[in-house]
């Protein structure tokens, strides 16, 4: 069944979109990630204009994060105070990101920017996760001692300290705000929630306990992506609500299925799978940039749209 998307102005198969939403939803449920970093490139591949893909994906992430955060609120694994600090940074970052995005769009370099961001971030995060989980598996096999985290580093010397009860932390607000800004920029430029950056940053940089990390990042992501959606909708008119609805119907169902699958697999195996997937997407995008494209020319903004 073909469906004509009113804003993207292309006709696509509705079941393909539902299927993509469902597939990415399963993965996001399994791994506890938003799935934006997979969905946005997939939308590029099926011919959705990049600007529309990025803006619409932000809207879809609002739905999946909201669905996810409810479970965490019930389990009391959301640090609202930390979430708010991250959020303040995130809103600044998102506004900055949209400005950069619109500027590069006028130069015709937005595709390049989006793809380069993906290659760099997916490459770094994927490689780090891969090495981490390999080490964890090896350690689990050899039955070594519990890894000890460094409790005091340079982060504890910064001013403006604040107490975060849920996380059991007393740290400066500067690192969380900076993390928030970075994630906000990424949300606006890449059409992702940024969970895959924020979760490692919260664990390794801020030293937050793992159980509150996912809930808190989801809480922040809802607001940052909602803000991004509004910015894209009012400045670029690129949010396609029909596309978003189809993706999120598949996505929310898939996410619930994925969560069930995820509980049956071991954490290390899960992480190594995710790392491999992240690296695969990264290599595909990198190859596209490195190999000579079959069509050197492209038609840019036609003014009227």
């Amino acid at each position: 069944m073909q469906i004509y998307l009113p804003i993207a102005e292309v006709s696509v198969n509705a079941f393909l979109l539902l299927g993509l939403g469902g597939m990415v939803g399963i993965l996001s449920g399994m791994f506890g990630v938003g799935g934006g970093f997979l969905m946005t490139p997939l939308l590029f591949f099926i011919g959705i204009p990049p600007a529309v893909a990025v803006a619409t994906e932000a809207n879809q992430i609002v739905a999946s994060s909201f669905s996810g955060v409810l479970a965490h609120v019930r389990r009391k694994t959301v640090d609202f105070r930390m979430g708010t600090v991250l959020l303040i940074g995130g809103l600044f970052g998102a506004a900055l990101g949209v400005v950069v995005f619109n500027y590069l769009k006028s130069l015709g370099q937005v595709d390049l920017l989006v793809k380069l961001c993906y290659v760099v971030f997916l490459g770094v995060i994927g490689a780090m996760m891969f090495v981490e989980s390999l080490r964890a598996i090896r350690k689990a096999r050899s039955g070594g001692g519990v890894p000890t985290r460094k409790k005091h580093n340079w982060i504890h010397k910064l001013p403006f300290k604040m107490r975060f009860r849920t996380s059991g932390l007393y740290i400066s607000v500067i690192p969380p705000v900076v993390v928030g800004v970075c994630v906000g920029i990424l949300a606006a430029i890449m059409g992702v929630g940024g969970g895959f950056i924020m979760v490692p940053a919260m664990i390794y940089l801020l030293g937050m306990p793992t159980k509150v990390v996912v809930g808190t990042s989801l809480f922040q992501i809802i607001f940052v992506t909602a803000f991004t959606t509004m910015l894209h909708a009012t400045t670029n008119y690129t949010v396609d609500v029909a596309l978003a609805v189809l993706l999120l119907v598949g996505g929310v169902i898939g996410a619930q299925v994925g969560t069930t699958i995820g509980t049956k697999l071991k954490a290390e195996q899960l992480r190594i799978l995710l790392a491999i997937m992240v690296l695969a997407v990264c290599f595909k995008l990198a190859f596209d940039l490195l190999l000579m494209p079959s069509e050197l020319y492209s038609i840019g903004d036609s003014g009227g749209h």
Partner: protein
Amino acid sequence: MIRLVLVLLLLTLPARAEEVVLGLSQDEVAITANFDGSQILVFGAVKREEPIPDGPPLEVVVAVSGPSEPVTVRRKARRFGIWVNTDSVLVDSAPIFYAVATSKAFGDVLTDVEDLRHRISIERAIRSVGAAMQTSSVQDFTDAVVRIRENAGLYKIVENSVAIDEQTLFRTAIDMPANVTEGDYSMRIFLTRSGEVVSFYETNIDVRKVGLERWLFNLSRENPMMYGLMSLAIAIAAGWGASAAFRILRQR
């Protein structure tokens, strides 16, 4: 004297010996939510007061053109090992859709001079006048527009697709792909003999989003704040709904 001048004037005007009487299966194309392309049937007759002239038979050219707009064409080149957009050319005017149907091979139904005059072939329909200053290879960019849009099914010349009976009745079908955009489309019909245009007829086809598509598109342009909030409300409702629905399912 004045009467003589009038008579002479009338004589020098091209005598419209043959004229097109046209029928279309639709003069509106509605882009609905399940729009999957459209086919417009064109059928017409040649009205004439005199017997069919001798000589080469009558041929028909049908050209459908979407609204023209300027497009920016960018070219990639290798910089620091990766392929990035480097040069760009603004092509002044290129139709967003262009289809030509002819009754014989294009070169047989129309001379170059007539093509130039009426801008019928795809190459002639695109204009890039001001672009000549920027890059020496503007032609490459114009060719690229044609190539990209031909691959997308937006530009095409279909030869031998107009059927003519007794040099009087003709019919053809113009396919519009699913990825057309809205606007005022023009349809031109040319009657030719030995490559010369003997008669010419023009009409409009209205391509419009309708219903929900229209409403969403208008809302997103005229009231983007409202549209954004609506998108968010839908997203939050869907997220909450799914979470609630699966909680009920699990408890059973």
